[in-house]
């Protein structure tokens, strides 16, 4: 028996969750009042969890680094949220949603978790509507659905192109209600810098008040981490500037395993990088690929002229355009899943057919759709996206094709959790994007919102009771305990260390350097040699960072550079672990593409015999290599097949 106990309930797939709920312990209302829970992060997962736990009667403390819980990056999700409602009568079902998600994740997720996700998905929509989320509707007044990539049914609910925003506002409203009732204490502009363990159990956190710089201790009977993904390890990504992996990383250092860290999603339709002044990439919704055709020039000389700006895209006749997705994947065409579309774009650009000055962009052309449907139809469908594109690039996408390029978007990997969403540290939970549980090696569109809310509204509030039921005799956590003292000292020491380096280079300098290494060697295509090289290079950057970084400002004042420094220090460690994990997984699956494991046509090739497991990394100390544990994935309800979109 491995030290990993996933606690997946026995019994048939469809009955696991109900049976489990029936078997787990419940805390009485009187006892809930005595128990405290800390929730870190207030995105869809965190806000919904904090609100739901407070409604149940627990005393909740919620933390976010933003100035308001409403600004968590869930807000930026555009497209929609999946739910197996079958409102369209198109033969959707819980099983079909489960199956699509497992298959979309390239068979690297747990069956039981994914099935539960599909099972609670209809409740999410009910809940959101009751909260006043203004979902899109039909003229008859009932909810509308749209279809999304990788599936055959219409099950995506949406609120224009701002679904994430509206769902987050729903959860935020519920959270506000509990704050006003005094059931949640909200700590905005606070960043968690460490988790505190007493007798092996998570008992609180150390957080920095970002305004005053004060380091404070907070105790609780359980700690929930809902701090999102670590995509910013690449410097340029679609994540928010402040999105970071630090909270999850502190958990890792305190004994929570990191699972599948190499699984990150690269979104194919982002606005390309221009020059070297850029700090952030902007996503253009996946829905654009419904009507846009992706192409690059057939002839190299045309590409060269485009790169030099000598000709424009409209100077290239149709017969000289290479619609490479339609050429390579005739059955799915421009609608192949994200990982496939991203790799295909990279392949063309690497071959020298990129269309912008940097040679790192492909065209997404609406000319054909406009010819076919008229400008008005296209404007009605994508008007706001076109406007956004024009604001950023100053190019009118009605007249010229958009330029797009893949960018880092989402982390499927994350903190390892069992079926109860508890990490390998008792009393420490991880939900939403921060955990690894539901998306395998590739996430389907409109599933991130579903998972965040499923965890926060309908899973954690049940499963946390199973743990807390045994804690009812534990008195209020004493933050004067030596463990808190120790943790605070550690945090203060680390901040002082960073601050006192007083080197010559800004934090961004190192972050950009790390990002470049990650993109080049741990990005869309990886190989053993490159990964080994990356590990060495990251080590060098880290060494340099701790010798030469310059953190201006004060320790006891609002100091964005100090915040960034701490996060980048952790990114350096996360990046190395990602490379290590990618090196171990010598197969291609989902967003993880190992050049050694490809078909003759260059498509991804899974190796189910050797790699049907979750890689779980255990921290062993600063100078030690982490230990890899493997949680074998057992598939009893689906048959593993090689994905094909030809």
């Amino acid at each position, binding site marked *: 028996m491995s030290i990993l106990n996933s606690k997946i309930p026995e019994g048939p797939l469809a009955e696991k969750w109900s049976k489990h709920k029936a078997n787990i312990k419940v805390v009485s209302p009187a006892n809930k009042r005595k128990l405290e829970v800390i929730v870190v992060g207030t995105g869809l997962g965190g806000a919904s969890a904090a609100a739901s736990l407070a409604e149940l009667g627990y005393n909740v403390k919620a933390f976010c680094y933003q100035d308001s819980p409403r600004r968590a990056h869930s807000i930026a999700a555009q497209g929609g949220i999946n739910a197996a409602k079958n409102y369209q009568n198109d033969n959707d079902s819980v099983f079909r949603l489960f199956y699509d998600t497992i298959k979309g994740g390239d068979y690297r997720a747990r069956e039981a978790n994914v099935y539960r996700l599909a099972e609670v998905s209809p409740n999410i929509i*009910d809940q959101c509507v009751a909260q006043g989320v203004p979902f899109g509707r039909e003229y008859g007044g009932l909810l509308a659905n749209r279809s999304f990539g990788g599936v055959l049914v219409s099950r995506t609910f949406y609120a224009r192109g701002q679904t994430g925003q509206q769902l987050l506002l729903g959860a935020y409203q519920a959270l506000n209600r509990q704050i006003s009732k005094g059931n949640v204490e909200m700590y905005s502009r606070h960043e968690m810098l460490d988790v505190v363990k007493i007798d092996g159990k998570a008992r609180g956190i150390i957080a920095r008040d970002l*305004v005053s710089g004060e380091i404070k201790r907070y105790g609780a009977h359980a700690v929930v981490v809902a701090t999102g993904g670590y995509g910013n390890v690449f410097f340029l990504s679609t994540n928010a500037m402040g999105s970071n992996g630090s909270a999850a990383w502190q958990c890792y250092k305190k004994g929570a395993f990191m699972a599948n860290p190499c699984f990150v999603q690269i979104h194919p339709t982002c606005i390309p990088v221009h020059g070297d002044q850029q700090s*952030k990439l902007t996503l253009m919704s996946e829905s654009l690929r419904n009507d846009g055709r992706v192409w690059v020039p057939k002839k190299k000389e045309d590409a060269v002229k485009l790169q030099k700006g000598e000709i424009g895209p409209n100077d290239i006749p149709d017969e000289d355009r290479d619609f490479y997705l339609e050429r390579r994947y005739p059955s799915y065409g421009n609608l192949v899943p994200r990982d496939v579309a991203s790799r295909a774009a990279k392949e063309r650009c690497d071959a020298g057919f990129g269309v912008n000055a940097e040679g790192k962009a492909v065209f997404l052309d609406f000319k054909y759709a406009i010819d076919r449907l008229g400008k008005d139809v296209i404007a009605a469908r994508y008007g706001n996206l076109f406007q956004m594109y024009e604001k950023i690039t100053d190019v009118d996408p009605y007249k010229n094709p958009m330029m797009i390029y893949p960018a880092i978007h989402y982390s499927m990997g994350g903190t390892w959790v069992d079926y109860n969403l508890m990490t390998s540290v008792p009393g420490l939970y991880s939900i939403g994007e921060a955990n690894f549980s539901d998306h395998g090696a590739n996430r389907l569109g409109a599933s991130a919102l579903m998972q965040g809310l499923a965890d926060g509204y309908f899973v954690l509030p049940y499963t946390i009771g199973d743990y807390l039921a045994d804690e009812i005799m534990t008195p209020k956590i004493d933050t004067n305990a030596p463990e808190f003292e120790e943790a605070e000292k550690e945090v203060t020491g680390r901040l002082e260390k960073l601050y006192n380096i007083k080197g010559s280079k800004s934090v*961004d300098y190192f972050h950009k350097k790390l990002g470049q290494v990650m993109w080049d060697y741990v990005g869309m295509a990886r190989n053993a040699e490159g990964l080994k090289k990356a590990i060495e290079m990251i080590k060098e950057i880290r060494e340099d960072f701790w010798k030469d970084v310059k953190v201006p400002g004060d320790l006891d004042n609002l100091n964005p550079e100090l915040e960034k420094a701490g996060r980048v220090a952790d990114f350096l460690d996360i990046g190395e672990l990602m490379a290590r994990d990618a090196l171990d997984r010598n197969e291609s699956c989902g967003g993880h593409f190992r050049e050694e494991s490809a078909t003759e046509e260059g498509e991804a090739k899974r190796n189910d015999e050797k790699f049907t497991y979750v890689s779980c990394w255990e921290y062993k100390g600063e100078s030690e290599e982490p230990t890899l544990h493997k949680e074998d994935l057992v598939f009893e309800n689906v048959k593993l097949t090689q994905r094909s979109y030809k």
Partner: protein
Amino acid sequence: MADKILKKLNIKVWRQKNASSKGKFETYTIENISTGSSFLEMMDILNNELIEKGIDPIAFDHDCREGICGTCSLYINGRPHGPDTEVTTCQLHMRKFKDGETITVEPWRAAAFPVIKDLIVDRTAFEKILQAGGFVSVNTGGVPDANTIPVAYEDAEESMDAAACIGCGACVAACKNSSAMLFVSAKVSHLAKLPQGQVEAKKRARNMVAKMDELGFGGCTNTGACEVECPKSISITNIARLNREYLVSRLSR
């Protein structure tokens, strides 16, 4: 369409160490900025130069840089979110500026939004207003099926128009009275247009307005500046709805 280079810009910016200290303007010069850069990327570059020179970088609020989180909040050349329409500061690009120009950058100014540092203000007042009633009082679970109550298409759309508010505070910054009426009315309208939110609509309007007044925002004089400067074009007809809800609720008691 091709990006040009702005050879030199003067950035006149408000510097204030913390909430209690007195601030002042400083002017910095920055060179070779691409017109394709966003305003905040220009600020990033400026900050990195300041760090190199040993000057404390300029603190400003920002996060998603996609125009949706509502964090960024700069008053640029006399306008919230600067000289472009329907954008947040993070979506503002340098092509809106001329070479050699002096760009004045200030924080939101309002009694209810005290400056924390440099260009960062404390918008907790917005939180408090929403906590006073900007929600539907339902717990998780036990709610009816989502399709039980049909909602007219137009109502859902109008609700969504109001719900698009990102809570950035540009309305307050733009208003000559620092009034928060557009913000409050957006939330009141968002929920009042849906049957789920209608139940508590009157009480909500009363409580949120009371809180807004308590926090020191000014009154609305219907100049309409908030609507024009709102990055999401929230309409002032929402303010009319709020007035209506409030007056009916008050006068019927």
